[in-house]
């Protein structure tokens, strides 16, 4: 039998990026005992990589902005598949969450009158993103981290949760292991908040760090929770494409916000060729107007490079497919051209986009102040995830809450840039508070050792496989390539059916994968444990993508290239059936209240 250490908390937060930290802070503020589990070291979570900013309708730069406009922008961007209650709360509460960061020491870039500066971003009508150069995520996570360490939160670093523990339906804790010693830790807690981020590592080309293996999605699914919208994966239009080693690393949308333009190999700004109908009235129809917009001219409309990410990504894909791509299979993103318009353009670029400047200098030997970048789509974000109540963030399983990327609803079929960082803050806080309340009101958790022992035993199985078992790395790589090829940015029935077969075969291989060495800091073992999560989310994505026979937001099907109104009325739910197989359900989207409907209408013009 595997040994384990027992740890008790009132609220256990799994994941220590923006959402997890904010949830832990909120729960601790209510006076309960909080444990925070980090898969890596504290402060290293994927939030650190967010670049552009956090969207909040503070109106510091353009006072026409308000939560109503932000709400309407979010819904339009999400193609109305969003949980409208979440979109409403998010738009209303984001400004306070940002100001709170300032009170905790964050130092955002400033307006001339000394307030928090806000920048333009795709799909946002007004300059709305609070930012710090192009390292906003770092500022946010460090602010939350430095605040959290003084709140009496127990931090468990480099600890990975392998299974949630339940008493009947209710989640009452989790079984985990610590990487450094390879020992098991049994958490019992009155409530659990999942804040584990995304699934990008299910794909080959991704901007996501190794941690993004869909742990929360999978843990929740196996505990019986509903996942929704799993077909909606965001491929960010601009990732690095060259050299191969850095393929997928994000190039912030901020480059386009600052005036960067996309061109094909013929030097043409192809984004002007395909402006969707519902954005036409808000989009510049000439280069001059687009430039003025990026420079803060309030009478100008945004350039088509700042259309929503799903659309820009597909336009890039089209240029490449039709032979107008750059040498390494991308297109050109040019910020250097602004020297035609601005004195001291090189200094300006370095000041506004310092990380981008260094990233290209160091990794690709390219000076972005003189030379266009080569960019192409990269797997960036999953809109889908665990279904939660909009107010409390509780999942369909009692005692289990979710916030941030692993939760679904706010972003619908496509997320607007900048809405993620604010999502983490708004719903992290809510999840923490409601989880604390739940833990206080419910009887003390009862954790049965049996389930924990079984989880530990199955986690150790890869060490005990006889003969020369296959290593997990090869299976993981194959899975990533397969998902990229068959369930990637452009999808179709036959390929996805094939993907299901391949997934079954990979699952079978994963069951027999083995690892060498001992349990202490063993990355092979860790990869073997991640595989189960990756396989679960990959299957959920594929099944949901097969079910949605239309194209909408992040989900594009070659065989059904158009939007279909019949599919606008429901979200696709994935849950575990009684027989252990994955089941699908079409869940009607509840009707929007009149006041919100009215906002959408008034903002349509």
């Amino acid at each position: 039998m595997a040994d384990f250490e027992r740890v008790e908390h009132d609220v256990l937060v799994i994941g220590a990026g923006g959402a997890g930290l904010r949830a832990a802070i909120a729960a601790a503020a209510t006076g309960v005992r909080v444990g925070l589990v980090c898969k890596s070291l504290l402060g290293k979570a994927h939030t650190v990589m967010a670049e552009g900013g956090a969207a909040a309708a503070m109106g510091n730069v353009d006072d026409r902005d308000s939560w109503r406009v932000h709400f309407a922008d979010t819904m339009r961007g999400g193609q109305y598949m969003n949980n409208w209650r979440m979109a409403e709360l998010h738009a209303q509460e984001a400004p306070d969450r940002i100001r709170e960061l300032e009170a905790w020491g964050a130092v955002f870039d400033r307006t001339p009158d000394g307030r928090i500066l806000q920048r333009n971003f795709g799909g946002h009508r007004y300059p709305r993103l609070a930012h710090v150069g192009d390292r906003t995520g770092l500022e946010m996570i460090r602010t939350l981290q430095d605040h959290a360490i003084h709140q009496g939160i127990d931090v468990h670093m480099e600890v990975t949760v392998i299974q949630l523990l339940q008493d009947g339906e209710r989640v009452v804790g989790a079984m985990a292991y610590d990487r450094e010693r390879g020992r098991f830790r049994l958490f019992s807690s009155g409530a659990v908040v999942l804040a584990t981020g995304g699934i990008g590592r299910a794909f080959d080309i991704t901007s996501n760090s190794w941690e993004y293996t869909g742990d929360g999605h999978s843990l929740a699914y196996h505990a019986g929770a509903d996942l929704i919208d799993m077909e909606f994966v965001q491929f960010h239009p601009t990732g690095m494409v060259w050299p191969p080693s850095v393929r997928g690393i994000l190039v912030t949308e901020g480059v386009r916000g600052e005036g960067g333009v996309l061109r094909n190999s013929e030097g043409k700004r192809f984004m002007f060729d395909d402006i969707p109908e519902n954005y036409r009235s808000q989009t510049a129809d000439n280069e001059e107007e687009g430039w003025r917009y990026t420079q803060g001219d309030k009478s100008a409309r945004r350039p088509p490079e700042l259309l929503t990410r799903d659309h820009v990504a597909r336009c890039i894909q089209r240029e490449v497919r039709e032979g107008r791509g750059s040498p390494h299979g991308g297109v050109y993103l040019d910020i250097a051209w602004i020297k035609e318009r601005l004195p001291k353009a090189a200094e300006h670029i370095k000041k506004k986009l310092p990380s981008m400047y260094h990233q290209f200098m160091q990794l690709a030997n390219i000076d972005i102040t003189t030379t266009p970048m080569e960019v192409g789509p990269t797997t960036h974000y999953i809109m889908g995830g665990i279904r939660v109540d909009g107010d409390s963030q509780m999942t369909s399983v009692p005692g289990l809450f979710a916030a941030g990327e692993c939760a679904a609803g706010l972003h619908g079929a496509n997320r607007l840039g900048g809405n993620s960082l604010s999502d983490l803050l708004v719903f992290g806080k809510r999840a923490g508070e409601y989880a604390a309340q739940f833990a206080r009101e419910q009887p003390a958790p009862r954790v049965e050792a049996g389930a924990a022992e079984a989880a530990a035993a199955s986690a150790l199985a890869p060490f005990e496989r006889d003969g020369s078992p296959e290593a997990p790395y090869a299976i993981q790589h194959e899975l990533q390539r397969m998902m990229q090829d068959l369930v990637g940015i452009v999808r179709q029935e036959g390929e996805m059916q094939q993907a299901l077969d391949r997934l079954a075969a990979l699952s079978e291989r994963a069951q027999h994968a083995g690892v060498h060495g001992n349990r202490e800091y063993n990355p092979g073992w860790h990869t073997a444990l991640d595989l189960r999560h990756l396989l679960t989310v990959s299957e959920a994505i594929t099944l949901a993508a097969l079910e949605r026979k239309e194209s909408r937001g992040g989900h594009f099907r070659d065989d059904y290239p158009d939007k279909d109104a019949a599919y606008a009325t429901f979200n696709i739910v994935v849950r575990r059936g009684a027989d252990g197989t994955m089941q699908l359900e079409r869940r009607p989207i509840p009707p929007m209240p009149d006041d919100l409907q009215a906002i959408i209408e008034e903002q349509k013009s």
Partner: protein
Amino acid sequence: MASTTFKIWRGERGQGAFTDYATEVTEGMVVLDAVHQIQASEAGDLAVRWNCKAGKCGSCSAEINGRPKLMCMTRMDELPAGEAVTIEPMRAFPHVRDLVTDVSWNYEVKKKIKKFTPRPPDAPDGTWRMAQADVDRVQEFRKCIECYLCQDVCHVLRDHHKHDEFIGPRFLVYAAALEMHPLDTEDRLRDLKDNHSIGYCNITKCCTSACPEHITITDNAIIPLKERVVDEFYDPVVKLVRLLRGKK
């Protein structure tokens, strides 16, 4: 492209030795790619810490050919061609396994520095006003990705093991960011002098050269802090003038 030899430190809790691995090096590759290739082929349990592979998280710190570096930002083509590459863990922290060290001391140190304490808000809506020019310096310090490479190279920690007394360059930068924050009202100067031993720093600037974020640790953070400490505790004239002017 050519196969290159990597001499990687392997072992546990301080015991270990270099092990040779050969792997293919292709265009644009960074050292972390090579480590991953080796992990995926012949050394499945090779322990290495990394997250972002984009120089943003500060997890992959190591000593490459004896130099403090982020593995994910060190391109193979900046190392001498055709020569073996050595990769070792940071030496200023307790060893865990292979390339991984125990950096938890840093987290303990940070907790001991008095937290940010803002003045009351400037505007009735609870917000503050700060000019960009007044936050430029603080923003420079806040670029820190907590890679701890500066701690690794500082002789006070690395060679003299003063971990119990000296907070190291990373946390002098952290303290400077708080002390120079336009909104902060806390006073950390006595702590810096008595408990954080800023006096141990003899301005060798090794930390500044190691910093992957190009923070001018010594000139912009440590020296001004030292000056403030001197003003506060050793210079009666300055102190008197300050008192008369009513400044902190």
